[in-house]
């Protein structure tokens, strides 16, 4: 291809070429990082909780005042919920995945250890937990009813008699994979607690990208407590397809047993998920719109400037055509010209994208940019340039050779 004459022509129009090149560079840098963030946030908001999500809903129950007979009230509620038609099982808890509020503890191998081996979210639930959550037990067993003890609020700090933990946590604490049957120390207490079961997956309640829980997102532990507190979460699992009806029936049934309570956030896990990841979703949509607008603006910019160049060189194009250049040759000229500018811009853009990524890693602990994104982005802007230049190039090709013979443009 005729690089030499193109370069010569470009050198007479440096600033225009530089403007397009710089636009392409910045566009590429934003596009690559933007798409990378979009992909990360989408992945984040689709993380599985480990629960039987389509069939699980939660209710936040607040007793009015500090009732004295909380244990009886809790027992009644649970038996009411469990006996509702369409319910597989129900349990009470201090928190639930996607609720963005909960408790965490350090897990230690040595009672005198100063640095926790791992951090874990803790869910205080009884022996119905596995069934009510719909989590998959991959080793060991469920809690027995005898292991469940009452826990009267957060200030009751007696250790659990046994625990079931998520596989991620088990592997973190016992990298050899032999966690089942071993014991750990929780929350800097001096009592050994045996691990009786391991579940495939169970997420912490916190969902934010830079939340406290993001450091140990997959570390969760079930502790066999009957949690007696003015504020509890009920977790209910229904038979497939019955969740909507059961949710309505559950609210009615609970209010029928006792009106002195406030039921809030009666929502399916899918609704909780939507709420929990709302800002992530917002960021994805906004970044998507900005990236699309960016592509459009850059494309129109290329169209505009190239059209101007075509208009400026009508006579020269006419002369080339008169001297025997084919229409294809004219189109190819503008395409090559654009490709040369775009390649230079893309190279600068790749460098800029990496700089932006390093800056983001330093200031927000963002992840390292995947090289594939940079390459895909670079190819994308090159194609964008080619597509944008096509229309003005075709217009240039349609300039009649006869133009060269006339005196004026």
């Amino acid at each position, binding site marked *: 291809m005729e690089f030499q004459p193109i370069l010569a022509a470009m050198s007479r129009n440096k600033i225009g070429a530089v403007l397009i090149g710089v636009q392409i560079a*910045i566009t590429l840098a934003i596009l690559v990082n933007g798409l990378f963030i979009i992909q990360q946030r989408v992945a984040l908001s689709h993380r599985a909780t480990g629960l039987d999500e389509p069939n699980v809903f939660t209710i936040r129950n*607040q007793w*009015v005042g500090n009732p004295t007979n909380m244990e009886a009230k809790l027992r009644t509620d649970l038996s009411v919920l469990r006996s509702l038609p369409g319910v597989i099982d129900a349990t009470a808890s201090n928190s639930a995945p996607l609720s963005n509020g909960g408790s965490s503890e350090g897990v230690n191998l040595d009672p005198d250890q100063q640095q926790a081996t791992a*951090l874990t979210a803790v869910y205080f639930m009884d022996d119905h937990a596995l069934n009510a959550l719909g989590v998959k037990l991959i080793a060991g067993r469920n809690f027995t009813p005898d292991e469940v003890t009452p826990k009267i609020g*957060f200030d009751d700090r007696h250790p659990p008699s046994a625990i079931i933990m998520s596989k991620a946590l088990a592997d973190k604490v016992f990298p050899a994979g032999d966690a089942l049957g071993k014991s750990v120390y929780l*929350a800097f207490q001096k009592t050994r607690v045996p691990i009786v079961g391991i579940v495939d997956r169970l997420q912490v309640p916190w969902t934010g990208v830079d939340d406290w829980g993001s450091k140990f997102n997959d570390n969760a532990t079930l502790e066999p407590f009957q949690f007696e507190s003015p504020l509890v979460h009920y977790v209910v699992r229904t038979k497939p397809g019955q969740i909507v009806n059961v949710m309505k029936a559950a609210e009615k049934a609970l209010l029928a047993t006792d009106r002195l*309570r406030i039921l809030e956030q009666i929502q399916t896990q899918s609704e909780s998920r939507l709420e929990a990841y709302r800002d992530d979703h*917002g*960021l994805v949509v906004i970044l998507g719109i*900005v990236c699309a607008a960016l592509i459009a603006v850059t494309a129109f910019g290329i169209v505009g400037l190239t059209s101007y160049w075509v208009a400026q060189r009508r006579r020269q194009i006419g002369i080339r055509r008169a001297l025997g250049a084919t229409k294809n040759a004219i189109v190819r000229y503008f395409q090559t010209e654009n490709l040369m500018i775009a390649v230079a811009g893309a190279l600068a853009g790749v460098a800029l994208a990496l700089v932006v990524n390093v800056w983001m890693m330093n200031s927000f602990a963002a992840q390292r940019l995947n090289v594939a994104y940079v390459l895909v982005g670079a190819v994308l802007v090159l194609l964008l340039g080619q597509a944008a230049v096509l229309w003005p190039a075709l217009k240039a090709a349609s300039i009649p050779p006869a133009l060269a013979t006339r005196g004026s443009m």
Partner: protein
Amino acid sequence: MFNYYLGLAVRSLRRNVVLTVLMIAAVGVGIGASMTTLTVFRAMDADPIPQKSSQLYTVQLDNWGPKRRGLGTGDAENLQPQISYQDAMAFMHAHQGVRQSAMYLTGLALIPSNVDLKPEQVITRAAYTDFFGMFQTPFLFGGAWTGEDDENHASVVVLSRELNNKVFGGRNSVGKTLNLDGRDYRITGVLNDWNPLPKFYDLNNDKYEKSAQIYIPFTRAIDGQMASWGNYNCNGDTGPAGWEGHLRSECVWLQFWLELPTRADAERFRHYLDGYAAEQRQNGRFDWSARTRLRDVREWLVYQNAVSQEARILVLVSFSFLLVCLINAMGLMLAKIMGRSADIGVRRALGANRAAIFGQCLMEAGVIGVAGGILGLLLTALGLIGLRSLVSEGVARLTHFNLSDITIAVVLSIAATLLAGLYPTWRAAQVQPAWQLKTQ
């Protein structure tokens, strides 16, 4: 002259509608995107209490010591964002500030007098009477409860305007009672709208959430054993069970703010804090020399990252986008102006000097800037409406456009467009009249 140049600019712009529209659209879209995100960013970064932000301080104390670093809830210096009950009480009794208040978030059930209605949850802040004076909360009716009420653990309450509207139809309810969790509270005041954003005095959960619906004395809340609805972090040292144990534990769950009018007062309080930490060590409570920190509102907001990661990313992205739009407009302006070299040559030949040409072309850029700015404002308004429907309630509260944002948008648009127009305009002024006329 201005009008003549303006007329010239408009006529020139109308000659090439496509290029003009492209330029205005580029500037407008860029301004719209960057102003949308800047508005949110400015709201997050705003000083929620500008008249007093340098006089209000919050306290941190390393009451967990070096061996609890592994819990990872503190910062690099192992300082927790909240303090324990025993420290809060010590600071309250020391009475070192002009005003001071320990506080925390809790929730109560409002029991309607009409038994057919369901009880309703009300977000509650437990605080001392100084809370209101210190933060200069505006009162619609009545006022704060008294210091005596604090001492007597009195059942008194201050309502938000919203709740007063809901329960009392907006009428003056001072002196009436409200049944909360089965106990009657006497209303001493109703606040006017008061929603500082970010909610600087308690950034633990949602930084941009609404202020509480009701305020009750801290001492009453402790008597009522009302658990914290905010963050509650413990270092694992087991004490006695129950509420008493909770109060005596090293668990951190309270915010503490005090008013120190001058720098000298703050310095004096820093000395007091260091003395307090040393005393705790002597008492045998700490076996380490505990660090302390005193931060004012602005320092606290920075320390607690009041501006979210999302907002930073979006501002960065949208301003780069604006840059692309401006480069774009610059290229198009260049194309447009250079396409009219002949025209400019004639004008130069007829006696227009370089300054006149420069002024005329710059006016064109200015017109584009104004038009782009107006389009940008419309797009910003649209963008904020769109944003409100996309993000959580807290962030949505930050999407309000005020006069200073509008001014910034218009000034930014005109300044940026003029800047982008400088080079093309300078090139236009360089046109040689003789050369242009000859090529004709």
